[in-house]
């Protein structure tokens, strides 16, 4: 069997499959279905300094080959995450987890990340500067290279764990933002967050989503995500985590060939709760089919003729 393990910022993952933030809760609900230790790791629900209810419903709309969500970072706040969610996770997960952090000011990002950084179970901080569904936070930090660099630099000073900055596709030049984050001290880049979109109900003549706009994910965005992973891999030297519309082991391999060290799986978890596990289980077969002995060895292989 080929070698599936990869090194993500100094921590070995048994395989590169990582359920993405916002599609996997705090893991323990999926642990009722299967042993989540079989995953590389997962990125838990985006956490902010204070509790957030999120946006009014409807928060979900279907699209061709995908979906829009406008959840708006609903979470119980970092203190409750540490006091209530992480203990539940520890009972079912023995690996390091990726802590997804969001905020509305540099100070909030810094405080939240610093608190989670102290938790033994946290392996990486994934800095979400790309949520399109909140106002005055999230994506507004990740669409400007200077602001992205400032928040990265500030959080980097406050944490010891590897810092992975999660980028938005809603920009003109994603490579420029990635370079700015790398220069500011990021240990890795993950991308893409969702693409901003909307739907209108002709019956009511109003936007379907309570928030008007939402983030597009699912297979529809895969080619866009793959292109951006390709661009960022060429732009930076730090590891890249690829995500956006990954639904199969083949998709994961494409991401790795484009330059991803590991691969996050998002919307697929919502239509099939076993989706991430199925990708893990299918990878050896697909690796063999394409003559891949080690995933780490073919990272970025599509860039070299």
């Amino acid at each position, binding site marked *: 069997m080929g070698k599936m393990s990869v090194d993500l910022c100094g921590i070995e993952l048994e395989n590169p499959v990582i359920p993405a933030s916002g599609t996997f809760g705090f893991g323990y609900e999926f642990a009722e*279905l299967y042993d989540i230790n079989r995953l590389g790791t997962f990125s838990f629900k985006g956490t902010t300094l204070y509790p957030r209810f*999120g946006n009014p*419903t409807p928060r979900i709309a279907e699209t061709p080959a995908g979906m829009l969500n406008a*959840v708006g970072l*609903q979470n119980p706040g970092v203190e409750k995450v540490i006091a209530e969610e992480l203990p539940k996770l520890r009972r079912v997960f023995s690996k390091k987890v990726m802590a997804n952090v969001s905020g509305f000011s540099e100070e909030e990002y810094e405080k939240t990340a610093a608190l989670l950084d102290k938790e033994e179970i946290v392996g990486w901080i994934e800095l979400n500067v790309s949520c399109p569904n909140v106002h005055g936070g999230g994506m507004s930090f990740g669409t400007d290279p200077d602001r992205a660099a400032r928040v990265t630099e500030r959080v980097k000073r406050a944490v010891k764990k590897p810092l992975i900055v999660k980028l938005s596709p809603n920009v003109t030049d994603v490579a420029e933002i990635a370079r700015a984050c790398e220069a500011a001290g990021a240990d890795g880049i993950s991308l893409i967050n969702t693409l901003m979109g909307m739907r209108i109900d002709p019956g009511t003549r109003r936007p379907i989503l309570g928030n008007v706009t939402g983030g597009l994910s699912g297979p529809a965005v895969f080619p866009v995500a793959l292109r951006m992973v390709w661009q960022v891999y060429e732009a930076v030297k730090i590891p890249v985590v690829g995500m956006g519309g990954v639904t199969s082991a083949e998709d994961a391999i494409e991401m790795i060939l484009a330059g991803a060290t590991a691969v996050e799986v998002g919307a697929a978890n*919502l239509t099939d709760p076993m989706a991430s596990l199925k990708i893990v289980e299918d990878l050896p077969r697909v690796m063999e089919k394409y003559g891949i002995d080690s995933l780490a060895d073919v990272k970025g292989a599509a860039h070299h003729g």
Partner: protein
Amino acid sequence: MKEVSFRILSNRPLTGEVFEMKLSGDVSDFRGPGQFAEVALPGFFLRRPISAADLGENSLTLIYKTVGKGTGSMSRLTPGAELSILTGLGNGYDLSRAGETPLLIGGGVGVPPLYLLAKRLREEGKAVRAILGFNTKSEIFYEEEFRALGAGVTVTTVDGSAGTKGFVTDALPEKPGYFYACGPLPMLRAVYRAVPGAGEFSLEERMGCGFGACMGCTIETASGPKRVCRDGPVFRKEELLWGK
């Protein structure tokens, strides 16, 4: 929750827009009435949440309205076809609170989960009363099925073309007892205001996953934010903040 492959046994219209699909497959993960299924439809990304209208030894009945392209395509599926369905989702009705004369209040496609509830309550020997509300005579379905269970049935239509003219709240008995309501939001809110006693409401919301992962269907309740799919879809009256 369990993913099960079901085979379609029948798929027939009950009215112009409401269809009844009977399927065979493993229903062991369903615990009782009020729970729902998430049906994967070929060519559509998200599953469709549909409550269980009836459960047999190895069979499931789903009653659904063709509201869009997805449910439209579902209505054209033929017997023999296989469907992937997530079963046993959500928390159903609490039968232990029914008392001796429970009142079931359903409106439109809110009627189906109450059929399974009526069946279970009748099995326990309860005197079930049901108020079933529709817009007009041609949209009435399952009236006879409720009667066949031995339930006392009152039908209301908004236009008065059958049964009592008006809304379900125009047909409330003097002593409602413990109630179970399912239907469109305006109907549920009207019941909330009109019935003074205790009861339960089954809510509907646009869902992403249907099993609690995406936070797509969260509502504010007396005990904080709750996911309709995982913490509901049935909520006790005192949990809802509609009176506030």
